[in-house]
């Protein structure tokens, strides 16, 4: 691999960005700072406005309100070609009438780059993406993964300030997706260019990102390092969106020293602000709930997912559906009535409407360990 290059100055700052289509507000005031060299993953459910936000950054849509700067320069009114960004489209958008080589060289030739340098850059990108044998083919004659790599190559050869990816892996099969994820991560390490990557897939977000920005309904929910978001979700949406299976949410009411729900009660965990409540929302990750013969929650097994080393049981309980982990050795069958118990200090607590986190788990453990 050639040595990493000095990346261009490319901090991206979004301030109060808004966008509506007709009367529909799609992006509702986004503030976000993407640091130089960062791999920021913008994740959220389908239709929440991720693509729109990305297109606003690329310049393919006009910004209604707010300010966008790239590398310190306000670019709101610049056309895409003057923003020096490269974008990989969800559909790849390869030029069907051009060979792979021409696809890669298109953007360079437009910049009047000398032929020799174009050839060098194309060769470099091709070897990086293992496209060297395919340069003379037309996109029609490529597999999905190869097309995807060409689309990335087209972005890479330009050496832009900023890469934008719009769900680039969503059209690939699982195995290919895992492989490409690895390659993307490698690519980012090598190029060290700022990247904004849009996906609805939390696994991609967790594995690729320097920082993750969780987006929903046009509003940025929370931004942070992947594990920080996983451990300390700021609200119910983030908590439920990251992690698989999704976090269990249980309505409870603070009654003295316990949190009482329908058919169960938990001890009030440390660090829960005493003035909140009494109606609260408790969140428990399935990984932190263990199926056994004892425990505060009881439920009927409705489905079982065995993953090998362990598995998940999906229960219906008086408090609602609950997913919980069981170990390989545990016997669980559909129809069984089982009890589940949370591991120590596993409780996330939110306000009743889920809009704000009140407590995160394991913090007392960490404090204890630190002291």
């Amino acid at each position, binding site marked *: 691999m050639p040595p990493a290059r000095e990346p261009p100055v490319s901090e991206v700052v979004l301030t109060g960005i808004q966008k509506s289509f007709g009367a529909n507000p799609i992006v509702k005031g986004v503030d976000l700072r993407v640091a130089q060299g960062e791999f920021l993953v913008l994740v959220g459910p389908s239709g929440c406005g991720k693509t729109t936000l990305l297109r606003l950054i*690329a*310049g*393919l849509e006009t910004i209604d309100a707010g300010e966008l700067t790239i590398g310190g320069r306000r670019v709101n009114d610049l*056309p*895409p*070609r003057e923003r020096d*960004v*490269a*974008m990989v*489209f969800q*559909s790849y*958008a*390869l*030029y*069907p*009438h051009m060979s792979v080589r021409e696809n890669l060289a*298109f*953007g360079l030739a*437009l*910049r009047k780059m000398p032929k020799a340098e174009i050839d060098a850059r194309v060769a470099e990108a091709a070897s990086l993406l293992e496209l060297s044998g395919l340069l003379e*083919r*037309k*996109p*029609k*004659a490529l597999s999905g993964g190869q097309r995807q790599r060409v689309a990335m190559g*087209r972005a890479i050869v*330009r050496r832009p300030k900023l890469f934008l990816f719009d769900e680039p892996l969503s059209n690939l099969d699982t195995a290919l997706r895992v492989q490409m994820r690895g390659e993307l991560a490698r690519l980012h390490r090598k190029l060290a260019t700022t990247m904004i990557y849009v996906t609805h897939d939390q696994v991609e977000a967790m594995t690729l990102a320097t920082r993750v920005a969780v987006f929903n309904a046009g509003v940025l929910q929370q931004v942070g390092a992947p594990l920080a978001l996983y451990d300390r979700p700021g609200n119910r949406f983030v908590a439920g969106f990251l992690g698989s299976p999704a976090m269990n949410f249980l309505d409870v009411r603070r009654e003295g020293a316990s949190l009482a729900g329908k058919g169960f009660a938990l001890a009030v965990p440390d660090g829960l602000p005493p003035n909140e409540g009494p109606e609260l929302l408790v969140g428990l990750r399935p990984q932190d709930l263990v199926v056994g013969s004892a425990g505060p929650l009881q439920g009927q097994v409705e489905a079982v997912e065995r993953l090998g080393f362990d598995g998940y049981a999906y229960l219906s309980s008086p408090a609602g559906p609950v997913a919980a982990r069981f170990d390989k050795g545990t016997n669980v069958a559909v129809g069984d009535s089982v009890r589940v118990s949370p591991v120590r200090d596993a409780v996330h607590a939110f306000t009743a409407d889920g809009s704000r986190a009140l407590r995160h788990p394991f913090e007392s453990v960490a404090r204890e360990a630190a002291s």
Partner: protein
Amino acid sequence: MKLWHSYRGAEEEALEKSAALFEQQTGEKVDLLAIPNDVLGDKLTAAIPHGVGPDVFIFNHERLRSFQHLGIVTASDGSIDKSAYFANAVDALSVDGKTYGYPLSLKCLALYFNTRLVPRPPADTTELERLLPGLSRPDENRFGLAYETGNFYFHAPFLFGFGGDLFDAGGRATFDTKGMVRSLEYVKRLQDSRFIPMETSGALVKSLFNDERAAMVVSGPWFAGEIAPSVKYGVAQLPRNSETGRPMSPFLGVEAAFVSPRSAQLPQAQALARFLSVGAASRLRAVTGRQVPANAAAYEDSAVQEDSLISSFRQAAANATPMPNTLEMARVWEPMKLALRAVLQGGVAPAEAGALADRRYRALHRERPPDASPVPYLAVGALALVAGGAYLARKPRALLPFRRRYPDVARAAVYTGPAVAGLLVLVAVPFVVGISLSLFHHEAGSYSFVGLANFADILASRGYRISEPLSFYFTLVVTVAWTLVNVVLHVGLGLFLAILLKEPLLKLRGVFRVLLIVPWAVPNYITALMWKGLFHRQFGAINGFLVLLGLEPVSWFTRFSTSFAANVATNTWLGFPFMMVVALGALQSIPQDLYEAAEVDGASKWVQFRRITLPLLRPALLPAVILGSVWTFNMFNIIYLVSGGEPGGSTDILVSEAYRWAFQRNEQYGFAAAYSVLIFFVLLGWSTVTKRVTRATDELMG
């Protein structure tokens, strides 16, 4: 007895009454059959030799010579009383010293004058010239005189008035004469003084006279029926030529009753034909049919005398020159039209027009090529059949018997039958007939086998230089240029509009889309006629617009470049919607994200168009371009109706040229067929080239 004619309306009524009178007097039954004018001649020549034709038929004398040649008319010498008719009417019916048929009515030109503007018609050209300046106001589009200036039939009175002759002593047409020059100079002067309008058609003459913007009009008896009731008019014979003292003598056309030699009752048939031409029948013709009788006695009737139209035409007819019924006459029209228009449009001086007509005459009237022996051709044909058979037989035998290989052959035959029959009748038969016809020469109703002589004459450009419009190569170059320019404009304009229409911000997009497709929906000959009018020298909207801008009006059809441009403009108007629709469809199928990718890649709108839009449109546009080029190559209607080949046939394309050889130049069907075969080969070559290009494009797209 059967009587065929082409009369309608009052003329038919007069004939019916006369036939009833004949039945009363003789007890012979007469069956009348009216046949449209344009097909009657062909019906007669087809039916009479087979014994299924009429006993008597009524026809104009111009085709008498050809009827006589085909043996479908009987001489009337024994039974006709020549003194009963005007002498020149009887003259018109004579062929080689014999008289055929009985003259019924006369047709010739006379002077119609608006009595409000011209109380007394001019007796000679001196008086006419005195009247004209006061009656003409060119700035108001008012003219002293109007007639179809580009038509030799209307020019003939001027020619004869100046003592010009059409035929030499040997009966051959002559054009390069003093009379011709003087007559051409005369009308050119009338036109230059703006006493007569330019590029005058029959429709224009009619509208000018009815709007009282033409004080006088030269036309025939048929014109009376077209005059608006509000216009008070009189009819007089054409004025005398003051320079020569001769009358301006128009052509005389004589309608006659002819007797078929195949009639089973020849004496009765002769009696019927004679009966129709004299006495009560001729009075009925005048009074009921309002035709101009050839029978002198008819004018003794007071009702006929009081009809000023009829008596005026009678006087005009008295001075008329019978239209020669010779084949030679049929060859005069096109060269004369060429010369006339060349002079009036200013391209050629009157003194040179005769030579021009003479050259064209000689070019058009090819000597009949020597007969060829069909044997070698039949041998080649037979050889080709044998070779084809051998090729088929040479193929290895199929493993399975035919029935096993195609078990549903009977049902397949039923399904494909109609299409196959249609192809046979509409494609295969005309194709074979056309190719065969190209090996024959047609003259005066008979064919002779001449082998490849037609092709040799065409390809060797025999009789005219390669640079003359009559040459195949000249026309081919014009045709290719015509096709090229059109296709480029159609695609360019179509693409441009398609791109505009695709623009989502354009308001009323749907409305524009419909409006722009309209030219395509209108029948193209209607469009062609409208554009022809737009390009008119004096009355066309385009020149009107130029004048409004302070520019000189353009005489569109007098120069090759402008005439060609007029054709192209018309055809572009007709052709761009198709390309627009195709391009619009293709544009909409290009994914939007390609443009976005290119935009991010740094492509300007123009680069996007060139590097994305154009290459991706190619696969859809190419077939349309190929189709369009073939349509345009053979776009007869526009050429024929808009420029009509003007000036001098230079804007004719191959198909319109083939048409003229077949139908306007002495019925040279074989020669025209040879043209068509050559057109076929040109297009065959073109389609092989395009097939290769299409294949390359398919490969391009992977």
